[in-house]
C-alpha cells in the first residue's frame, strides 16, 4: 500500500526557472491496485513517480510504502520496495553488460551485495527459465550484451528484471512509448501478466487514453502538479475515450481535442 500525503516538489527553487511541479498530491493506493496515470506534457507525472522512487525528495508532505515512512529515503534505499521500468529502453538496463549480468544486478535489488559470485550456476539456470517464459527466444542469448537487443526486447527484459527481487510497488513511466504498436501491445500484455502474477501495486504512466482505461483498476489524471481526476470501479467502467478526452480538454482550458493520437507526445 502507498500513502501519499500532500507532497510538494519544486525544481530550481529561488531561480528564475523555479517550477512548482507537484502542488499537494494526496493519495492512498491499496495493496495490489493497478493505477494508470495520464496528463499532458509537464503535468508532473514523471515527477510524481520520481518522488515515489526517491529520485526527487518531497520538500513537504509524507510518503509511506507498506507502512514504512520513506519520505527522506534516497533511491538506492527505496529500491528494496520499488521496482521500475523507464521510458527509454536504454535507461533501465546496462547496455555494456550481458543480459544475465543485468538480471543478476536486478536479482540483488534491495539486498546487501557481497563478494559472492554474481552468477552462480543455480542462478544462471533460474534466469534461463525465467527469460524463456517471455517467449522471445532470448534464453540462448544470455551472454549477449544488453545493447544488442531491440528496444522492445529490452523493455520486456526490464519488466522481467523488475520481478526478480521482491518489491512492493512497480512504477512504469511510459514504458511502451518508444516501441512500435505491435511491440507495445506485447509489452503491455506482459505487463498485465506480471502485475497479476506478482500481485504488484502498480502505477503506469501513459499518453494513450485507450490504455489508461483498458489496463488496471483505477485512473488518475494529473494537471499542473495536482490530481484532477481519480476514477475507479463503476464510474471508470462507464467512461470511454471521448469522455476522458473531454475531461482532459476541460483541464487544458477548453481546447477541444478530438483524437487520442494528438496526445501522444
Amino acid at each position, binding site marked *: 500500500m502507498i500513502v501519499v500525503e500532500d507532497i510538494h516538489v519544486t525544481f530550481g527553487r529561488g531561480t528564475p526557472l523555479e517550477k512548482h511541479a507537484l502542488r499537494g498530491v494526496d493519495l492512498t493506493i491499496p495493496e495490489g491496485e493497478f493505477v494508470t496515470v495520464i496528463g499532458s506534457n509537464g503535468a508532473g507525472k514523471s515527477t510524481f513517480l520520481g518522488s515515489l*522512487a526517491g529520485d526527487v525528495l518531497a520538500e513537504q508532505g509524507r510518503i509511506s510504502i507498506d507502512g514504512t515512512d520513506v519520505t527522506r529515503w534516497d533511491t*538506492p534505499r527505496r*529500491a528494496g520496495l520499488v521496482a521500475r521500468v523507464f521510458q527509454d529502453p536504454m*535507461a533501465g538496463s546496462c547496455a555494456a*553488460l550481458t543480459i544475465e549480468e543485468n538480471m543478476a544486478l536486478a536479482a540483488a*535489488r534491495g539486498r546487501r*551485495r*557481497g563478494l559472492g559470485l*554474481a552468477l552462480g550456476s543455480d542462478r544462471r539456470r533460474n534466469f534461463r527459465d525465467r527469460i524463456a517464459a517471455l517467449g522471445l527466444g532470448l534464453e540462448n542469448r544470455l551472454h549477449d550484451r544488453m545493447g544488442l537487443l531491440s528496444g522492445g526486447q529490452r523493455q520486456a527484459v526490464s519488466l522481467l528484471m523488475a520481478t526478480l527481487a521482491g518489491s512492493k510497488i512497480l512504477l512504469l513511466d511510459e514504458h511502451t512509448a518508444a516501441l512500435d504498436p505491435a511491440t507495445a501491445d506485447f509489452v503491455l500484455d506482459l505487463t498485465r501478466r506480471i502485475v497479476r502474477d506478482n500481485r504488484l501495486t502498480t502505477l503506469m504512466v501513459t499518453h494513450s487514453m485507450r490504455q489508461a482505461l483498458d489496463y488496471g483498476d483505477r485512473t488518475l489524471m494529473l494537471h499542473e502538479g495536482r490530481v484532477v481526476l481519480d476514477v475507479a470501479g463503476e464510474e471508470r467502467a462507464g467512461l470511454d475515450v471521448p469522455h476522458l478526452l473531454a475531461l482532459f480538454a476541460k483541464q487544458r482550458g477548453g481546447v477541444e481535442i478530438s483524437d487520442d493520437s494528438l496526445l501522444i507526445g
Partner: protein
Amino acid sequence: MTEIALFGAIEIGLVYALVAIGVYLSFRILDFPDLTVDGSFPLGAAVCAVLLIAGVNPWLASLAAALAGAAAGLVTATLNVRFKILHLLASILTMIALFSVNLRVMGRPNVALLMQDTVLTPFYGLGIPDHIVRPLVVGVIVAVVVLLLARFLSSEFGLAMRATGVNARMARAQGVDTDAHVYAGIALSNALTGLAGALFAQTNGFADVTTGIGTIVVGLAAVIVGETVLPARTLALALVGCVAGSILYRLAVQLALSADSIGLQASDLNLVTAVLVAVALILPRLRAKASRSVSRSPSAAK
C-alpha cells in the same frame, strides 16, 4: 636489443601493468578519468622506500604503499562525490598535493635503496640471473592481482561497481549505492598504483618524487595497446589485455630507443607516449567518420 634490455622492458612493463589495471578500473569500468595516479605512484614508492629503510618487512612495506595509494584515491573520490568537484579537477588537486606529501614522506627528493632487503631478496640466491628473477617475481604478483581482481569484478559487489560506471541511474534504481562504489573503485585503482610504485622502488633501488610524471599517460597507453591487440569479450581477458598492453608498450619503446637510426633519446619517452595515446584516441573517431561517410554515400545516391 640485448637480452638484458629485453628482460628489463618486460620487468618495467609488468610493474606498470598494475598501473594499467588501475587506470582500466577508473577510466573504463567507473568512467571516472582519474589523474591521481601521477601522485599515488611516487607515493607508493616513497612510503615503501622509507619503511624499508626503517627496517620494516618488505611485504608489509608494499602493503602500506598500497594503502597509502588507496587513501590518495579516497581524497580524490571525496572531492568529487562529496563536494561535487569535477573528477578531472579533483584528481589534479590530489596529484599536486601529493607532490608535496611525497617530499615530506621521504624528507628529500629521492631515496636510494642500497643494502635494504626487498621482496626480491629471497629469490636472488636461487641461481637464476637477477635480470630474470625480477620480472618473474613481479609477474607472479601481477598474476595474483589479475586473478583476485577478475574474481572481485564478477562478485555481486564488483558487478554493481561495473553498473555504476555504465549506467548510474539504473544502478541506483537497483539499490546500488553508487557513491560507495566510486569510493571503493577509485581507492582500489590507486592502491594498485601505489603497489606498482612500491615494486618500482624495489626493482630499481630508488624512489624519486619525479617518477610520477606521466604515469597516467603510460597507464592509458598500456590500456589502449591492450584493447587493440586483445579486443576482450570477457573481463578477465580485458585485465590480461592491460598486462599485455603494458609489456608490449615497453618493448616498443625499448625497440624505438635502441634503433639508433631513429635518433630517439630516453628523454623523448614522454613525447612519444603522448603522441601514441593521442593517435590511439583519434583513430577510432576517424574510422567511425570514414565508415559513416561510406554508409551515407549509397543512400545519397538513391
